[in-house]
């Protein structure tokens, strides 16, 4: 299993500002995933972050809005840019589940973001 730490755990932000969420894993992993869970909804994959290459974004998500960094095999950041109230969600970092792996995904505790 993997232990994943996310910071901050929650934040209240003004619209138009940006927030960077950090994700630290206790072991080296090739792939990291960022999900969004809007209130009362399921998890939606935002992007896959590979170390040493640009993130791969899912339909409906773009790099300008959700820039991702992956400087090494244990760390990643997701920035939510130019926030609006519609960005209010829980953002979750995840590892595991890559194509070569048959393991389950492990999740951080999430970052609860409220945009006012």
């Amino acid at each position, binding site marked *: 299993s993997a232990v994943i730490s996310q910071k901050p755990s929650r934040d209240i932000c003004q619209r138009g500002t940006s927030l960077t969420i950090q994700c630290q894993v206790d072991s080296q992993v090739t*792939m990291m*995933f960022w*999900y969004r869970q809007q209130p009362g*909804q*399921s*998890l*939606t*994959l935002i992007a*896959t972050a590979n170390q040493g290459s640009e993130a791969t974004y899912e339909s409906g998500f773009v790099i300008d809005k959700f820039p991702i960094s992956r400087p090494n095999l244990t760390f990643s950041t997701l920035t939510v840019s130019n926030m609006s109230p519609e960005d209010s969600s829980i953002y*979750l970092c*995840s590892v595991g*589940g*890559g*194509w070569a792996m*048959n393991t*389950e*995904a*492990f*999740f*951080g*505790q*999430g970052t609860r973001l409220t945009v006012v």
Partner: protein
Amino acid sequence: AQSVAQPEDQVNVAEGNPLTVKCTYSVSGNPYLFWYVQYPNRGLQFLLKYITGDNLVKGSYGFEAEFNKSQTSFHLKKPSALVSDSALYFCAVKGNRDDKIIFGKGTRLHILP
């Protein structure tokens, strides 16, 4: 494209009765199937998975799930429900040639005392 469906938004079960939470899936290739639980204000916890082998898999907290290839289903079950089982349950799927795990919309389970 892979997808997963949880047809029930909410399931109500009396404490002590058996429970079933339904899940069907669609993937290319062989499926990897998962169940997760989310308690209020907490992260997702892994319950169990099917990769290969026995169609009946057992997981945490007395839960089990049965993989049915012909019906493309992976229903979550428990013989005797507890009030503490009340939570939001997510079914998830990954194709064996895919990188990412896709989640169903979730089913809220209410166990009535």
